[in-house]
């Protein structure tokens, strides 16, 4: 297998996902197949080839440094799952 259950669990933890036992097994198989397919890229000689991160690269998309209207506090908070005093409310971070 290209990827182990332990690796799936490690990566899931990095991505803040928790997987059921059955999903870990299925994902290890499917993602293993996909990564094995991706390995065909190793057949391409890329020595000296610069990477492309954007097909059309623009450098320095400048705009005038002037204030423009932005979302009001109430609008920004309108979809918040929990809010208090004009802020987003989250479970306690520092205990």
């Amino acid at each position: 297998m290209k990827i182990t259950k332990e690796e799936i669990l490690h990566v899931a933890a990095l991505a803040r996902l928790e997987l059921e036992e059955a999903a870990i097994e299925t994902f290890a198989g499917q993602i293993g197949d996909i990564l094995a397919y991706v390995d065909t890229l190793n057949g391409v000689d890329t020595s000296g080839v610069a990477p492309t991160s954007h097909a059309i690269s623009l450098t320095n998309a400048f705009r005038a440094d002037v204030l423009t209207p932005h979302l009001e506090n109430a609008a920004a908070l309108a979809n918040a799952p929990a809010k208090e005093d004009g802020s987003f409310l989250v479970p306690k971070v520092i205990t």
Partner: protein
Amino acid sequence: MELHELTIHQARERLKRREITAVALTEALLARIAEIDPRVRAFITVAADSALAEARTADQTLADGSPGPLTGIPLAVKDLICTRGLRTTCASRVLENFVPPYDAEVIRRLKAAGAILLGKLNMDEFAMGSSNENSGFFPTHNPWDLSRIPGGSSGGSAAAVAAGMCLGALGSDTGGSIRQPAAHCGVVGLKPTYGRVSRYGLVAFASSLDQIGPLAKDVSDAALLLNAIAGHDPQDSTAVPEAVPDYTTFLQKGLRGVTVGIPREYQAAAGLDPEVAAAVEKAVAVLRDLGAECVEVSLPHAAYAVAAYYVIAPSEASSNLARYDGVKYGFRDTSKTDLMEMYRSTRSRGFGREVQRRIIIGTYCLSAGYYDAYYGKASQVRTLIRKDFEAAFESCDVLISPVAPTPAFKIGEKVDDPLTMYLSDMFTLSANLAGIPGMSIPCGFSEAGLPIGLQLLGPHFNEGRLFRVAYNFEQATDHHRRRPPL
């Protein structure tokens, strides 16, 4: 002809001549949705009240004699394009109740052009999928055969246009998500050049690949829609400040002097259905009869597009989707009192299987020790794919190929086999990796009566060439006039 059967250009003429009203047209489409959509299931949200209010305003504008290019034209958009005050779900439980506080730039432009918004269309969750089976709510059915997929991820957009439930639609295309469903539903779909259309207000999947584009009943309608949405936008730093031509000026008869390239690698592609291959071959003959010169070209790295894409797109997605943490908007598991547990539970309960799978692939490819081997390598291969196109366009004006290797497959047929599903994107992914424009137009039907699409590809910012070739092909054929038997 019934009102829901009109194209945009036909409706525009009738509205201008005051033969029909925008309210009557909108009412006809809402009635069509009520009649057909329980079977097709293209809409996640129908905005009947606001659509009728917009139609009344449009009729006033038409009466005043100062209509915009789309005044009174009822459209619908894929449900990942933000609409102020109108729920935008991305077909995900995570955004099930998200009501955007602002309009996407393309929505602002459509409204400024006078268009009416009928509602929001179904899709694969976060645009990840080729069949609409990954919608977090329900799958959309192909109007030509309700037991089959409409394609994806803009499956709702393609199905709604094909079934006459809107006059045109917007979708988004990250690896073929406009072109493939357009092919499967027998409509025209265009992925513009990367940067041609602003992505401001488009829910991000893979930011270096995503592009918004039109789905329409014919080529002329697609040109009218691109006219309305294309152009620079300071709110999207990747929107290119390049002049926008009037795309309808490319809709002229004649293909003399046009060279059409046929990529050798695509003809010999594994898994290409003989009926699709035959339809594309026939299309080549039609183009030749119209005066185009057809030459064989080579895209030596075509076979690596799927592998490169399924590193790059999930990598970008894993980063983009980190924002769904239950803090600022979207679903939160409120039963958790520990922050980390809240993150994990929110994301695990909110995202569907395919989205989780791609987040894991992307996180893996970007994680310590693997970045160079996966993301780095794929980004280098992306350069080679881009250069293949640059070289090919030195000897031809446009490239043609199939859109999908087979006609629409059955719902459920590939759902347990993600790799096979990914491989069905083999003809469309390269255009996103290279940033070039691609169009799908109807070019025939299988024996079972399923639509087959032809893909046209052009160099950066040469959508005009695609419109010219597509328009001539359309004038010489009648595939686009067939409508599904609903």
